[in-house]
């Protein structure tokens, strides 16, 4: 069970950590979903051609970075509304992956091959889990101990003060977007490489869940990690419940949302009570 939950949660942790960087930099990144999707696609595409999951993984990060760059360039340079460009980035990811896949593979559908190299595993755990744990620790370090981390937080808290202090918010926010692209791309790779296949739309809302995890995790890497585990636990419970009870599946599908919401309400209630 623990293994299953950890497996379910890795892609979301990676994407949420990516989103944390933009969130701390004061950028509402709703494009996590699209960034994951291009990562998932690139991972399969490149692994398919090179036969190496490592190259595929790197390709996924690069694909995430590329989309993040387009998204960031338009949003930050042209000062377009980040919410709409974020929706745009998600649509773009869907369109471009289908388009490329029809050019390259002659199908807009599922991409897979039987000889797909399997992922490296250590014991029962696949490498992405270690990547997620490592990323969490590195994120804590970057945020608290590096020049970039300090400038990132400063920009997010108050961009105008940071600007006066000589911090170039454009470059900081752009970097944070690129990092979120890389990490979300990895999250996408964790999803598709483990499956050995790319399915259009396979991220299925995980980018949004990652965004929720950032807020529920109080914008702290460790908090996010724990939140992701809890969310995956809720999902696991709902999956298992389908086999145990005769509850209509639609109601069970609503469960993870309700559990998360309840958790959030309890959390804010406790917070408010402590404040008083």
């Amino acid at each position, binding site marked *: 069970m623990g293994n299953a939950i950890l497996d379910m949660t890795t892609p979301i942790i990676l994407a949420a950590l990516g989103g944390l960087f933009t969130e701390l930099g004061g950028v509402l990144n709703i494009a996590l979903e699209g960034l994951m999707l291009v990562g998932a696609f690139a991972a399969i595409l490149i692994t398919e051609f090179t036969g190496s999951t490592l190259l595929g993984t790197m390709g996924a990060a690069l694909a995430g970075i590329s989309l993040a760059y387009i998204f960031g360039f338009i949003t930050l340079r042209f000062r377009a509304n980040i919410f709409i460009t974020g929706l745009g980035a998600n649509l773009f990811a869907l369109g471009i992956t289908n388009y490329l896949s029809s050019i390259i593979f002659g199908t807009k559908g599922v991409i897979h091959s039987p000889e797909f190299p399997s992922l490296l595993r250590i014991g029962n755990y696949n490498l992405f889990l270690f990547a997620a744990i490592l990323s969490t620790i590195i994120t804590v370090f970057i945020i608290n101990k590096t020049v970039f981390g*300090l400038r990132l*937080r400063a920009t997010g*808290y108050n961009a105008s*003060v*940071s600007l*006066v*202090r*000589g*911090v170039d918010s454009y470059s900081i926010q752009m970097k944070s977007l690129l990092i979120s692209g890389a990490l979300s791309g990895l999250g996408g790779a964790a999803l598709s490489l483990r499956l050995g296949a790319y399915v259009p739309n396979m991220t299925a809302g995980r980018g949004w869940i990652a965004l929720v995890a950032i807020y529920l995790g109080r914008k702290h890497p460790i908090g996010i990690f724990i939140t992701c585990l809890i969310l995956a636990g809720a999902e696991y419970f709902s999956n298992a419940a389908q086999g145990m009870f005769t509850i209509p599946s639609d109601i069970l599908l609503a469960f993870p949302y309700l559990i998360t919401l309840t958790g959030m309400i309890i959390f804010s209630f406790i917070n408010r009570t402590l404040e008083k």
Partner: protein
Amino acid sequence: MDTPLLEMHGIAKTFHKNSVKAVDGANLIVGQSEIHIIIGENGAGKSTLMHILSGEVFPDSGKIIFNNREGIPGTPSEALGEGIGMLHQHIKLIPELTVLENIILGAEPSGGYGIINRKEAIKKLNRLSVKYDLSAEPDKLVSTLNSDEKQKTALLSILFQDIKLLILDEPTTFFSELKTDSVYKLIRKLKSIGKSVVIITHKLKEAAAIGDFITVMRGGKTILTLKASETDPHRLSNIIFGDEKNLSPVRSGSIFGNPLLELKNLLFIKNGKEILDISLTVREGEIVVVTGIRESGLETLEKLLSGEYKASAGIIMYKTAELSGRTELRKRKAGYIPSDRIKTGTSTESSIAENMILLNYKSFSKSGIFRAGSIKKFAYTLIKKYGITGVPGQIMSTLSGGNIQRVMISREIEANPELLIVAEPSRGLDIKSKSLIYNKIFNLKNKGSGILIISSDIEESLRIADRLIILYDGKVAYSGDGKGIDRSALGKIMLGYDR
């Protein structure tokens, strides 16, 4: 003579939002190790000119030569890179970060790979602390600091960057009155090690006291530059403001009525520490001034009265009603001019008219819908009465700082409150605006309203108070009519010598 450190020629800037020429062909020359004062009325263009120098505003035209290099800084980061740093009138710190993080931001000592070298940072900070006599606790969160500590942190943050020219915007507004001396000391110290300082102020005395040169600005133009030692303050005053004497407020005779506001043993305790313990009464027709140095509890008193803080013990009486819990003075139509004019006192993205009707907006409506005509009329009346440059529909953020304040003051005073609470009445105001606000306050007093002023400006306090209360360390150190107390005696009480 050496070449000057800074030359600015023909600088002009029009803000598109309201097409007002903020700076209109200004010139400025600042030498090496020179203290240069820029003086002028609110809205004369001083701040804009300096914001252009610090890279925050990009001019429409003009030429800047700094340190023998010509060019215009595109961003504050570029200006800082060249050695130009600015300390703003409103403290620009990030409360969620620690003191050290705030200080090193933008000039972080790096230990390679982009990792902050904390040891090096602390070492440099300690060196600066000793050199300029400014202490700091590096790991404290800025949100937990008192205003004095915040000022030190802000100053250190500028000094931490290696600058050649420091711009100070209204330093004595920024620092409490009695800290002025230490500010002067600091400025002279900077000069002595070869740095230049440009100070924006509208205070004549300040200009004369420490400046080497004084440049006067009016209507966006630099009208003349003088050597400070050769300047006669009265002549200068006439150049800037016209005749100062006529503008000075006069205390009027007083008949006091019933108590309006009574604070009975009002106590505020934070983290087990007693921050404030005060009793006072404001009667009809009375001006009560509470003064003290910054950390003496003035801010806490304001926050208790505004309802932001909840009193730990004691009673607040408004007329005959006892207000429990958080004060609801505002709901009882008490007037209140907060010390934080911008964030609290105005809605900067709303129009002048919308800001003006805040206190009685419902009276401009019929069954929930506004009558546009009467709002417009009201706004025009206030604009005229308070000499505001603008039209009712104009967005506040396009106004100059002085005009923003006038809008707020007009609103509070025109509501004819029975009780008016004013925090730091003269902060950031030029003499004209100041005298306007005093005249309005005296009018109100003469109509029988009670007025409570919370001010760290000593002279102002002495001049206008019917009753003077001096706080020291959160406690009342003096309470009386203020007669027979001169400036130096007052200073001693404020610093706790005369207890």
